[in-house]
């Protein structure tokens, strides 16, 4: 278990991380989500004992990071942002070197992590020659070589192509079954796809912290339905739709040919059958009706751009 209490770190006058507290239970995949410059990397750097905190503490399994950083470094596997590995080394040599420094008998263990991270075919290549995806996987192998209970990954999928992203995500999910994983990202779908739990930070503070599905359902309380019809102008559509119970507002949407409207619905009311009935009975032509995929994006935008200070409950 990792518990972080009141962690604070400034660079000069700039407070990168401001009084952050959270706990991570064993065997969870936690996503640290926030826009660029929110303090994700700084937080992870303090967790991995690269940076010292100005204030606050990181306690891993009862050991305070400030008292015994070497022990913590042994327990954690850390992959820094964009995997800054030694470019002039062969993949195999690099992993052997890390194993040696960590005091693990090398060859067999290197073979195992190469298997898990699927980098067997590039073991004889220079790290500089690798594609970003392979480089990232070598970085993962580097972080896992001592079989740590905790993996800390800083933006593990940034800069990868879509196929590589899916591969790395699957790998992380697989690892998350046995290990505690903390990863950071500014990409929302990533959190939804991989994490059990999400912590949203903005401007160095935690603005939301909950299980992913709970946050999603909180966001789901405000649904939006988009319809495109012909045979009626927006005013007519609006007055017809406003009558449905549960509809909060009807806004026009942009469409060159058809009449388009965004219908906001509060609560869990299901209004789509009613909308369809009205359109059918008025003999309008319906071209499209879709429920907006409400995702974490809404919360994320609200919390980070809107500058809301409260936490989502």
């Amino acid at each position, binding site marked *: 278990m990792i518990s972080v209490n009141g962690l604070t770190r400034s660079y000069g006058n700039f407070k990168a991380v401001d009084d952050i507290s959270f706990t991570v239970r064993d065997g969870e995949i936690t996503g640290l989500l926030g826009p660029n410059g929110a303090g994700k990397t700084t937080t992870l*750097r303090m967790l991995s004992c690269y940076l010292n905190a100005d204030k606050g503490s990181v306690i891993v399994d009862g050991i305070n990071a400030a008292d015994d950083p070497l022990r913590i*470094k*042994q327990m*954690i596997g*850390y992959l820094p*942002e964009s995997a*800054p590995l030694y470019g002039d080394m062969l993949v195999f040599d690099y992993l052997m070197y890390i194993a*040696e420094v*960590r005091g693990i008998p090398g060859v067999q263990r290197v073979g195992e992590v190469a298997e898990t991270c699927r980098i067997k075919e590039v073991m004889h290549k220079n790290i500089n020659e690798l594609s970003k995806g392979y480089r990232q996987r070598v970085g993962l192998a*580097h972080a896992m070589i001592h079989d740590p209970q905790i993996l800390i990954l800083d933006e593990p999928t940034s800069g990868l192509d879509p196929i590589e992203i899916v591969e790395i995500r699957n790998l992380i999910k697989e690892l998350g079954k046995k290990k505690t994983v903390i990863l950071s990202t500014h990409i929302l779908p990533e959190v939804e796809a991989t994490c059990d739990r999400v912590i949203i930070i903005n401007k160095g503070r935690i603005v939301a912290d909950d299980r992913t599905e709970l946050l999603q359902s909180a966001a789901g309380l405000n649904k939006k339905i988009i319809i495109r019809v012909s045979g009626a102008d927006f005013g007519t559509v609006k007055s017809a739709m406003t009558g449905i119970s549960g509809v909060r507002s009807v806004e026009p949407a942009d469409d060159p040919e058809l009449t388009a409207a965004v219908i906001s619905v509060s609560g869990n009311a299901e209004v789509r059958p009613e909308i369809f009935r009205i359109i059918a009975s008025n003999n309008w032509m319906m071209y499209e009706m879709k429920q907006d995929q409400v995702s974490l994006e809404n919360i994320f935008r609200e919390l980070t751009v809107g500058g809301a200070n409260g936490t989502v409950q």
Partner: protein
Amino acid sequence: MERFSEMSAIMRKELKSYFNSPIAYIVITIFLVFTGFFFFKDFFYFNQAEMRNLFQLMPLMLCFVIPAVTMRLFSEERQSGSFEILMTLPVTSRNIALGKFFAGTIFSAVMVSPTLIYLVTVVLLGTPDFGPVIGGYTGVIFLSAAYTSIGLLASSFTRNQVISFISAWAACFSLWLIDKAVIFLPSKLGFISYFGTDYHFQNIAKGLIDSRDVVYFISICVLSLMFTIKVIEERR
């Protein structure tokens, strides 16, 4: 040195990357071309088969060459970001600094070792006094270690290898210059020459291995390494 294996792993990795990069060979070549020129100049012009001139030149040569050897040790890691990986491995800063220091010193020793060929020609053609030769090489090792530690310190400050090189060169060169500058000072300040590397090196190169000179070089190493450790702990 509770975990010797960590330090030696880092040292061997640094040595390997020295010999994997062209810079090593360029530096060695430049060093040998210059020392070779100055050695054989006397050898042929003055028909002197002796090592003394080589050793007289060595402190100045190493001033230029060793900063080129050490400039990458930390700067490159800072530049590429691998510093973060190094610092999150379960290794003490002391072992990191020592590993890099020994790698640099060993590399410098390897760089100087081809000059032993000059010694062979001297033995074949003349009758060298082995005291100064042994003293000279011992002095070169101590001097290299001292300059390497200064270069390591300069490298730990910056991510820019050029700045690292120039500041290390300036520091080494000033230490070489100190005992030459003493003639401009009142005689009361004559003790300042004790701070010069050349003063101590020439003592050892006479074949007189005095503990004072050895202590001088070792204390430069220890001081620089202590500051290096402090710098890498603080500057992240």
